[in-house]
């Protein structure tokens, strides 16, 4: 009850309101928006951001950032389709994709925790390297999937719901519990809030950060696998700008870039707002160039709100 009241009073109420308002405006502008098919589309799009977004939330809570999530969409998608075409096994392709994501995440994490490179720079570097690698490896040509049933992952249904939506929802629930009801989750907030104090309290700061990056890598890979399945291909330019969408969405949802502050619930709302906005622009037939402008505006707005919130707290 107390929790519910806090929820209604806090920032999240504002996010819910913004989401409802956006939906109301869009449904007034175009009747298609509220159709079952379109809403399902929105959720399907949101689930891709959401799956990678969970990893991003964890990394940002730990006081770091991961810019490589977009490029890994390309690399992992291509690897998955190659593996699939070679072996014909969906499971092997999935494991390969997740394994690749784990390696990317560990690489980022080691650059940050062992080499001591600022995570913004380290993952900016790996983002460029991965994108370049994807282009070089494929001669900039997409690789088509040749195994039947692959597209089922991204486009199929479990019951009434698209499979990616179910996966995203389950992961959200799982990580909600992990963040709030396990020592590791609590440590994450502590490490992001004050790393020095966390170290003195005997928390494994470096290990937690490494694990956060590894998790972000794996979840980005899972979303890459689903994307490849939806497209039935591995594309070297897949996920361009994806990392910014993810970051914008979770920051909009109140996850603070300074670390140690934010919730998955908020991040989920931020993701929905951003996806509905994208969807609306498509429905209204706005040129895709304007999408970039809208996205950029949302990013700036999100960070502005984050700054304002931080200042508001600083005053107390």
């Amino acid at each position, binding site marked *: 009850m107390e929790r519910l009241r806090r929820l209604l009073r806090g920032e999240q109420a504002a996010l819910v309101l913004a989401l409802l308002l956006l939906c109301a405006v869009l449904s007034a502008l175009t009747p298609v928006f509220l159709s079952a098919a379109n809403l399902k589309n929105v959720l399907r799009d949101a689930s891709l951001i959401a799956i990678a977004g969970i990893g991003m939330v964890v990394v940002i809570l730990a006081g770091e950032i991961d810019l490589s999530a977009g490029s890994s969409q390309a690399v992992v998608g291509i690897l998955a389709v190659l593996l699939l075409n070679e072996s014909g096994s969906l499971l092997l392709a999935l494991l390969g994709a997740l394994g690749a994501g784990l390696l990317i995440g560990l690489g980022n994490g080691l650059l940050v925790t062992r080499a001591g490179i600022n995570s913004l720079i380290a993952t900016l570097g790996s983002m460029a390297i991965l994108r370049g690698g994807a282009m070089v490896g494929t001669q900039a040509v997409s690789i088509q999937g040749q195994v039947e049933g692959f597209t089922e992952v991204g486009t199929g249904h479990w019951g009434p719901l698209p499979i990616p939506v179910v996966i995203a929802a389950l992961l959200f629930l799982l990580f909600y519990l992990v963040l709030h009801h396990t020592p590791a989750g609590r*440590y994450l907030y*502590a490490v992001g*809030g*004050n790393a020095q*104090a966390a170290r*003195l*309290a005997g*928390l494994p700061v470096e290990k937690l950060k490494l694990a956060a990056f590894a998790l972000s890598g794996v979840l980005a890979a899972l979303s890459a696998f689903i994307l490849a399945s939806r497209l039935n291909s591995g594309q070297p330019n897949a996920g361009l700008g994806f990392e910014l969408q993810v970051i914008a969405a979770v920051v909009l949802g109140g996850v603070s870039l300074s670390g140690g502050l934010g919730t998955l619930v908020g991040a989920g709302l931020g993701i929905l707002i951003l996806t509905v906005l994208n969807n609306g622009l498509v429905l209204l037939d706005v040129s895709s160039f304007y999408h970039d402008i809208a996205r950029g505006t949302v990013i700036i707005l999100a960070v502005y709100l984050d700054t304002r919130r931080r200042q508001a707290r600083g005053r107390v």
Partner: protein
Amino acid sequence: MEPLVELRGIHKQYPGVYALKGVDFDLRPGEVHALVGENGAGKSTLIKILAGAVSFEQGEYRIEGKPAQIHSPQDAIRRGISVVYQELELAPRLSVAENIFFGRLPSRRGRVLWAQLYRDSALVLEQVGLEVDPETEVARLGIAAQQLVEIARALSCQARVLVMDEPTSALTPSEISRLFGLVRRLREQGTAILYVSHKLQEIFALADRVTVLRDGARVATSGAGELDEARLIGLMVGRPLGEMFSRRHRPGGAPALEVEGLSTARVRDISFQVRAGEIVGFSGLMGAGRTEVARGVLGLDRRLAGRVRVGGEELPPDSCAAARRLGLGLVPEDRRGEGIFPQLGVGHNASIAALEQFSRRGWIEGGREREAVAAQVRRLEVRTPSLGQRISLLSGGNQQKVLIARWLLRQALVVLVVDEPTRGIDVGARAEIYRLLDELAGQGLGLVVISSELPELLGLCDRILVMKGGRITGALERAEATQEKLLALAL
């Protein structure tokens, strides 16, 4: 005499906290007016209102008898009101001169007149009695000198009112007496000085008048001569205070902490032992290496040589996690920077080092956690509206208690190292913390207390080790230790 600055009936509320409830306060030219009160009494808020850094809901701000509009620190500075805050606000990479005239560099057509800047700076530096080249980088100065630079900055703004917030908390005795000399000189020149300190001797040494705040209200303003220490403490805490130190000496038990030949980049060949139930103190001047011993023991600074055993078990170098597991806890000197998690609640701050104890199969059992935390919060008398209250909103004393609770929650705790246990903590809470440390020793915990306050060490410790230049220069048993002997070993 007409007051220079006067606050009348000031009310200030923060979310959840009624910080000031109709406080009257005034400062006359040429007086040192001390402001005292426990943490959370409203001193900082009052200072910030004087400085224009926070607004107030009700009341009046008057300068020389006329209502004044002070809405920002710039307004206050323009009217000659300057604050030297507890945390120094200097740009460490800039020169002394640039810091003094920060934002007001003498210039012509957009070009800084360096020669004039250095000349003017030299003049103000002479006023405060600081002999350094104005071109020196501030980061290369000691804390005392940096403080003088801040005062010089205030004087260069033609300050008629100087607010000093805990100015001596990081100074050595000789630096303090120099600072006092400066304060007295400024008073003779007609400056009004608001002096905030927890150290009562300082107040009786300096102040002409004393105002006591308690729970956001003014309980008294009177001449310093009409008060004595006991009465002043009584006014601050609202009840007579028992004995400050209630240490009961007991023979020590098994070795809790054994350090042999520990060396790091900053300390050399440190050996000592703490038995269960013992309180061992570390004394020495600033920079003598006291805090660095704690850092070396925990592995925060790289261990170059030596061994550390906690409860008889070897502590591997470079691992705070191992230290926690073996039962060694540290309550750091820099509470805000290294102790608290400012965005988390009181409860989560307290339980963070003991979460495994409340977990089953990897999941925290919230009920058990809350129960244990609530029990410690009650036992330590932490004053907080709820366990969910953000810790950064508590007073320093209460934050300190939460940090102690953090380690007490660990069942396996063998040794607790407390660095400057009462820094920035008011008299009432101090006595409580001393009592608590004594009680913990009584329960068989080994305690290390690092402190720059000699009375604190003399009152608390069974044995005091004195450091100088990164080495232990002597050890004094409780019965033989005196301030003079400690100082002789430290100098």
